[in-house]
């Protein structure tokens, strides 16, 4: 039993690590100019998914590191993406049971709200630090997140199957 748990934990770590690596690579890849505005926040999507589904293993410390790496990749002020990821992941971890019980549409509505909050914090930090940004860079990724989440959720859920026996719940 304990051994099985250990194996599962390691497996989870490997899968999660590769998910984050892919998310970071997607963040680095340059896309054509007309679409760059609308690129979803891959790191945030991965963080939300993992913190809802594996909150004990991936919560705030993961959010901290992923946010920090995003800061370095995007060349923003260190701590900007970190802070906003932390706040989002705090919410998703705290309410992961509620979020799991939501229907897909409800979950999507929540993701929309969370990404608005995420970008509001980024926007706000930019404003305080005097970094100029456009209005489009604020709302366009939110649309990207809204479109990308169902796909990301579908793909990750498929390869990230939950096989907790129902009677043990």
């Amino acid at each position, binding site marked *: 039993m304990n051994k099985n748990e250990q194996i599962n934990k390691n497996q989870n770590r490997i899968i999660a690590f590769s998910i984050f690596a892919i998310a970071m690579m997607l963040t680095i890849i*340059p896309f054509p100019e007309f679409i760059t505005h609308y690129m979803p926040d891959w790191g945030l999507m991965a963080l939300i998914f993992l913190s809802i589904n594996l909150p*004990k293993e991936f919560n705030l410390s993961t959010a901290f590191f992923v946010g920090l790496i995003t800061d370095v990749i995007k060349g923003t*002020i*260190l701590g900007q993406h970190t802070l906003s990821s932390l706040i989002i992941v705090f919410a998703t971890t705290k309410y992961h049971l509620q979020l799991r019980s939501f229907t897909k549409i409800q979950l999507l509505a929540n993701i929309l709200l969370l990404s608005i909050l995420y970008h509001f914090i980024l926007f706000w930090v930019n404003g305080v630090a005097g970094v100029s940004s456009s209005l489009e860079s604020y709302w366009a990724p939110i649309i990207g997140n809204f479109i990308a989440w169902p796909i990301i959720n579908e793909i990750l859920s498929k390869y990230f*199957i939950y096989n907790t026996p129902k009677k*043990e719940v």
Partner: protein
Amino acid sequence: MVAKKDDHSRPRIPALTSKFLFFVILSAFMLINDQRNDYLSLLRNSIAIAIYPLQSLVEAPSRISNWIEKRVVSREMLIEENKNLQDQEKINLITLQRYASLEQENMRLRRILDAADRLNHEVEIARIISTNSNPYRHTITINKGIQDGVFEGQVLLDADGVLGQILHSNFLTSEGILISDADHAIPVQINRNGLRTIAVGNGSFSKLNIPYIPNNADIEIGDLFVTSGFGGKFPSGYPVAEVESIISDPAEQFLTVSAKPIAQLNQVRELMLLRTASDE
């Protein structure tokens, strides 16, 4: 491979709120310190080194295709020779840029005595490995870092003109800011008559704003802006932009001038780092 979801028997995550407070304080600390001082450069450097493999992985497909293309077209010797010649050509072009502006200087009989020894600027070729995905931050990452002698404020050029400068230099890579970034300004002068001003980026690759030209100034469409050498960052005489439009509104104190950058800001893959710092 299949991962297993947490069981629901113990849904509470231990010490979530205190962890949250701890990390929020930590990131607030970083936010406050990052722009003010240099304490966090080590952190930035180490993360940059850690993600270097990912960056090279992302860049690998285009590099492999380039490589195959070269192999198919010609033999190894030819490739090597061709590459050296291309590099040499770029260096020559840079020197030529300087000659054009010096010639102008001579024509106006304003040659400065020490102009001759400002000709020999050494350059080093670097490759862009990634660009910023945020359209309002025109920053790029290049494949040379502190290890190769890249320093903060170093000038970036392409074959045609000034591209920008180095923002941070990490150990293996460096981050550069382009002249079109909305937070970037570069001191320039009109090559024809020496009128000094500042060219400010506005987030568009094809346009720079020249905000402080008085209404009665001598400026025409097609005038070339070259770096003026003031401000201590950019050496003088490198082409920056060409005047594209001039709008004069008598109610305003200044003309609305926009200029087109000479360098191919969003098309270059290889760029040049000027070895020497400013010459003033």
